[in-house]
């Protein structure tokens, strides 16, 4: 269970808003996504069952991987002498894998709240970049959007934003999130209750998530080969590992974003000259 970042899942009992329904009374929550004019091809009319199957096909393996990591998280909680139920409570509410692993150590040590706030902010600041290209406009209901934002973990971002948004339905996206959230929380229950006995002797299961990211990177590259972007991202990642081995993700993403801004500036200056 080394993989700290695993992303977590959103809050506890996921209300599982079925795709195109649920205009709840929560207007202010509207994530401000403006692209409501998008055409939503009959997708929203499909039965929820097929949305679920589509999510299962594309994300089922990831749900399983997250479930296994959740077990690791639950084991860690009891190993720190904390009550087992803290595992599902934290995994369901914070739902941001990597920081949860760190939080457990901080709670056990009784760390000051300011330190906990700073740690959470630094480790999760990578999420500032996810909303820039996540296809939130494919989800119609406010509750659904709110839930998607709440549960926007690394895996959900990676799987959903790498696809052509037109092939996604809101229901499928929500199910993808719910499966991850549920897998993480139920894994935490199991790990918390069984302690170190189950599966924890199997080395290498957390590789599933690394494999997922590799697959997504290969896919994204093959579908639109862009060597410069890949190299900029790879170099940003390596630089971040060398600079701050403990929290490379937000640093890598910030460095990468800076290189993209520079790249855009250079490109537009060139085209202006031409």
């Amino acid at each position, binding site marked *: 269970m*080394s*993989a700290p*970042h695993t992303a977590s899942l959103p809050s506890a009992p996921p209300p599982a808003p079925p795709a195109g329904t649920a205009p709840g009374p929560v207007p202010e929550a509207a*994530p401000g*996504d403006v692209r409501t004019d998008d055409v939503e091809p009959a997708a929203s009319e499909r039965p929820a069952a097929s949305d679920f199957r589509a999510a299962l*096909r594309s994300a089922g*393996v*990831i749900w399983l*991987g997250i479930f296994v990591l959740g077990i690791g998280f639950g084991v860690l909680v009891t190993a720190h002498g904390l*009550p087992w139920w*803290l595992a599902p*409570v*934290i995994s369901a*509410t*914070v739902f941001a894998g990597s*920081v949860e692993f760190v*939080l457990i150590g*901080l*709670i056990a040590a*009784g760390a000051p*709240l300011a330190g*906990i706030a700073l740690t959470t*902010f630094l480790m*999760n600041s990578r*999420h500032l970049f996810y*909303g*820039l*290209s996540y296809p*939130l406009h494919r989800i119609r209901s406010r509750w659904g959007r709110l839930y998607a934002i*709440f549960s926007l973990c690394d895996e959900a971002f990676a799987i959903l934003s*790498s696809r052509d948004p037109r092939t996604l339905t809101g229901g499928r996206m929500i199910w993808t999130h719910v499966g991850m959230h549920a897998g993480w929380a139920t894994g935490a229950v199991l790990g918390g209750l069984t302690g170190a006995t189950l599966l924890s002797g199997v*080395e290498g299961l*957390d*590789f599933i*998530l*690394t*494999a*997922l*990211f*590799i*697959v997504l*990177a290969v*896919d*994204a590259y093959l579908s639109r080969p862009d060597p410069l*972007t*890949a190299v*900029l*991202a*790879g170099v*940003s*990642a390596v630089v971040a590992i060398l600079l701050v081995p403990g929290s*490379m*993700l937000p640093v*890598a993403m910030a460095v*990468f*974003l800076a290189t*993209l*801004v520079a790249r*855009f500036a250079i490109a*537009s200056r060139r085209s202006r000259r031409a």
Partner: protein
Amino acid sequence: MPSPGYIVAVIAIAVGITFVLRLTPFLAAPKLRDSAAMTAVSRWMPLGIVVILAVYGLSTIDFSAPGHGVPALSGAAATVLVHVWRRNAVLSIVAGTAVCLVLANLVF
């Protein structure tokens, strides 16, 4: 065990900060979305982020473990090869993880 009040405060802080971080770009994006810079950046972003996540995953490999990282690196190579070959995400993940598991548990 820490006091219930402390635990509730920790969870509230972690949930609040995480949610605000996730929400912020959606609130900012509409204003930015029409700009040429934003369009360009969001076109490059998904590939770059998954590359960073992949490098991150590889960086968590424990080279001091008995296999010295060989199981995970072999799994990574298998994942790439199977994926380029079949372009089936589930198959690639299962194949790569299987290679890693077999090497880590049965060989080393």
